[in-house]
């Protein structure tokens, strides 16, 4: 009668220990800060894309594998949304301290007509010298953007400096394997972004 209890209880105990271990290791969302962005689960492999870096060299998204990559689609004439987001990303990276070295922020221009890769790089460097700015031809950029749920479109209504470009302001976070893991809406604070990046770094 008692003989079956021990293996059953033993295996349940093991299950319990594994569960507790998983919680302790941060695999389960128990006892940890809620993620502010939206988690893609399971992480979504995205097709690799070749874009152009400053200096005209071909850069692939897979070049950044091993780091957590925060991708932002913006442009240098962008009046408000882009500078706000890039400044928040820069502060979030600083807040991570040493662990911030494992985070790579990449801005891909949605206005390649005016933003050469050099201009894009120079622009993002002003926010943080480690940020990378990428450009390329518009068809290639649109392909990458569309697949990540990002749309952009040149607007006819102009500002003083010419035209504006409407674009999705979401930040996309790839995990160390280069898979899409997290989407951050526009408007998160630097602290919230830092929390979310910390979570992806732990994965």
């Amino acid at each position, binding site marked *: 009668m008692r003989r079956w209890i021990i293996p059953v209880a033993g295996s349940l*105990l093991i299950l319990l220990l594994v569960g507790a271990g998983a919680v302790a290791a941060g695999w389960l969302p*128990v006892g940890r800060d*809620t993620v502010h962005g*939206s988690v*893609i689960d399971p992480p979504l492999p995205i097709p690799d894309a070749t874009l152009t870096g400053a200096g005209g060299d071909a850069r692939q998204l897979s070049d950044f594998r091993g780091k957590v990559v925060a991708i932002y689609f913006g442009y240098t004439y962008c009046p408000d949304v882009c500078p706000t987001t890039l400044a928040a990303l820069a502060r979030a990276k600083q807040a991570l301290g040493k662990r911030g070295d494992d985070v790579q922020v990449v801005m891909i221009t949605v206005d390649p007509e005016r933003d050469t890769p050099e201009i894009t790089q120079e622009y993002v460097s002003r926010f943080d010298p480690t940020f990378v700015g990428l450009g390329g031809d518009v068809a290639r950029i649109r392909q990458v*953007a*569309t*697949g*990540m749920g990002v749309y952009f479109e040149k607007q006819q209504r102009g500002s003083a400096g010419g035209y504006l470009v409407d674009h*999705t302001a979401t930040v996309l976070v790839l995990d160390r394997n280069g898979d899409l893991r997290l989407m951050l809406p526009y408007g998160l604070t630097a602290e919230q972004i830092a929390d979310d990046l910390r979570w992806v770094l732990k994965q």
Partner: protein
Amino acid sequence: MARAGLLYSAILVVTVVIVALAAFRPIRVLPRIAPAPGFALTDQEGQRLTSEDLRGKIVLYDFTYLSCPSPCARTTEVMRQVQERLAREPAAEPEVRLITISFDPERDSPAALRAAAEAAGADPARWRFATGAPELMKLIVGAGFNVFYERNPDGSFRFDPTLVLVDGWGIVRAEYRVGPPPAEQIVNDIRLVANEARRSRGPARLAYEATHLFVCNVR
């Protein structure tokens, strides 16, 4: 002996909780499949319709071309039934939109889209018909929504009739690919996504995120 009793009751409690979670499914979620593509289309009134306009709303998409013979009518009929069921319910939060995308922009002008919308009984506030620049349709519909279509030499299309449900984040939560599913099932799925969007706050969010980890609780 008392200690052993305590241990066994602890194990019993944990077991009951696990079994209850698996059996009663107090929280159900749809998986987060992939980001839906970003797009800028033109609708039946000639208005811009972008993926950003739909942020914060739950959207059911279907894909077609208007000169399609009868088989296409089946997904349109499902869309119509979903619209009807949603109209009968009290206004949902977040709002739900239906979008029919034509992958034949050369022939499907806004006027043709408007005629098709009227024929389908579409309520313009809820259900819009749209198409976009010809060179972008393959990127949006084919690569983005993962819907196969190909033009035949006679101008008709071969394609996989598909409906796609996208949440307010722009993330695909359900794909219906094998024949048109019953409207009932889609409306239930919409409810699940809406409930999650409404209730997934504070401590409840932890429970929802935990549920996403258990495959057995997915629908």
